[in-house]
């Protein structure tokens, strides 16, 4: 059982914090045992799960953050706080390759994609989603790249281990009736492969 006062305290801190807070930081601030903090976080997460609230406790980038529920996205977007953007497919491809294969060099990315990735890589670095981890100790000393904690925050991932599982094998039995490569075509193919749950919440538990 968590210390009763700890749950609302933890809630207040997570609510007011600018960035995701982890249990160690909370324990520091509250001068409490980390174990009790974890219990309080568990209890808080459970509370948000059980009661129909607009926000939930999301484990992200190694910490915890209160976020609005994805199913309310359409309404929240009307607040217009942020201009919606979409990643190009080239950017998403490169980002996925870096996320799953890091640390990785640019030639390795380009071999996997079969195409020059310099400008895409630059954009991802500018958006702080990818960073240089260092140099690889091979001839030429190529830079090695990896993802940032901003990447985890953007995609709501607790850590790299909570990336959607890579589909090792997937038969190319696509419905052949689809003409061209329209966005709807992409959506259809991903529904079939069923890589993420429809709510995308699975990483939370």
């Amino acid at each position, binding site marked *: 059982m968590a210390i009763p006062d700890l749950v609302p305290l933890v809630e207040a801190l997570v609510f007011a914090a600018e960035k995701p807070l982890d249990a160690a930081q909370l324990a520091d601030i509250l001068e409490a045992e980390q174990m009790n903090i974890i219990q309080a976080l568990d209890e808080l997460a459970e509370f948000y799960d059980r009661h129909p609230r607009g926000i939930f406790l999301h484990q992200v980038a190694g910490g915890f953050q209160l976020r*609005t529920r994805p199913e309310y996205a359409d309404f929240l977007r009307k607040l217009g*706080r*942020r201009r919606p953007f979409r990643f190009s497919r080239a950017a998403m491809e490169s980002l996925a390759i870096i996320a799953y294969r890091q640390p990785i060099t640019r030639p390795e990315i380009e071999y996997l*994609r079969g195409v020059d990735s310099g400008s895409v890589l630059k954009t991802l670095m500018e958006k702080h989603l990818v960073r240089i981890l260092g140099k690889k100790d091979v001839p030429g000393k190529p830079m090695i790249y990896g993802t940032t904690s901003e990447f985890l925050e953007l*995609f709501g991932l607790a850590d790299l281990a909570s*990336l959607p599982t890579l589909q090792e094998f*997937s038969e190319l039995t696509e419905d*052949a009736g689809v003409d061209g490569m329209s966005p709807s075509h992409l959506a259809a193919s*991903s529904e079939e492969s069923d890589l993420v749950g429809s709510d995308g919440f699975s990483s939370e538990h």
Partner: protein
Amino acid sequence: MNLYEVHLDNFTGPLDLLLHLIKKNEMDIYDIPIAAITSQYLEILDAMQTLNLDVAGEFLLMAASLVHVKSRLLLPKVVDDESEEDEDDPRAELVRRLLEYQKYKEAAVALDEQPKLNQDVFSRFAPEPEVLEKCDGGFVEVSLFDLLAALQDVLRENPEPLFHTVDVEQLSVTDRINAIMSRLQGHQSLAFYDLFPDKVERSDIVVTFLAMLELVRLRMVRFMQNKRFGTIWLMTSVEVTPDELELGEEALGYS
């Protein structure tokens, strides 16, 4: 042959285009009819060129590889009854790359479907696109890459002049070290860019930069910044007056 509607933007690369053709024709990826796929692939490249689209080099390279694979298929095999199968199928490399590529292509779609911060889920503090630099937080160490990027910024603003300089100006790193240290006196920190006045000789910039590096090496200043890509600050780490410094150019190795 069908007429293909070509949207170049829809293909992120030659592997993507090949996968599309394989799906469209319901081909078996482990037994790709190279001749058929090559002719369709080339047809699309032709169409791209007709539309005056620049065909990226990678697409042409793939076309060459396809033809190469086909030519190897046509060559009589050295018959080795034991292991003539898959092992030396010239298509194996291509198949492996296609499968690997497809794996990440699907992963990208799955990742893109995750609820994204400020798109699908919102937190109270949405990081603003252009946040003002805050000076309250702690400092973090500047990485070598940030430092080099900062040097490059300064060098870019002061491009190499197109004329020859005939007069030789003696620049001393020691003098510059002393100059920096006296500027630092009474201050806790100086911004990196403030140490480079406008319209300065490039050799001057180099000497100033070397002086900074020397100071860091001597542990008299440290490079710090508030946040990634933030301003780089030179911060004093010890109180030293310039005359306490007994640095000869020889000692520094710049004589």
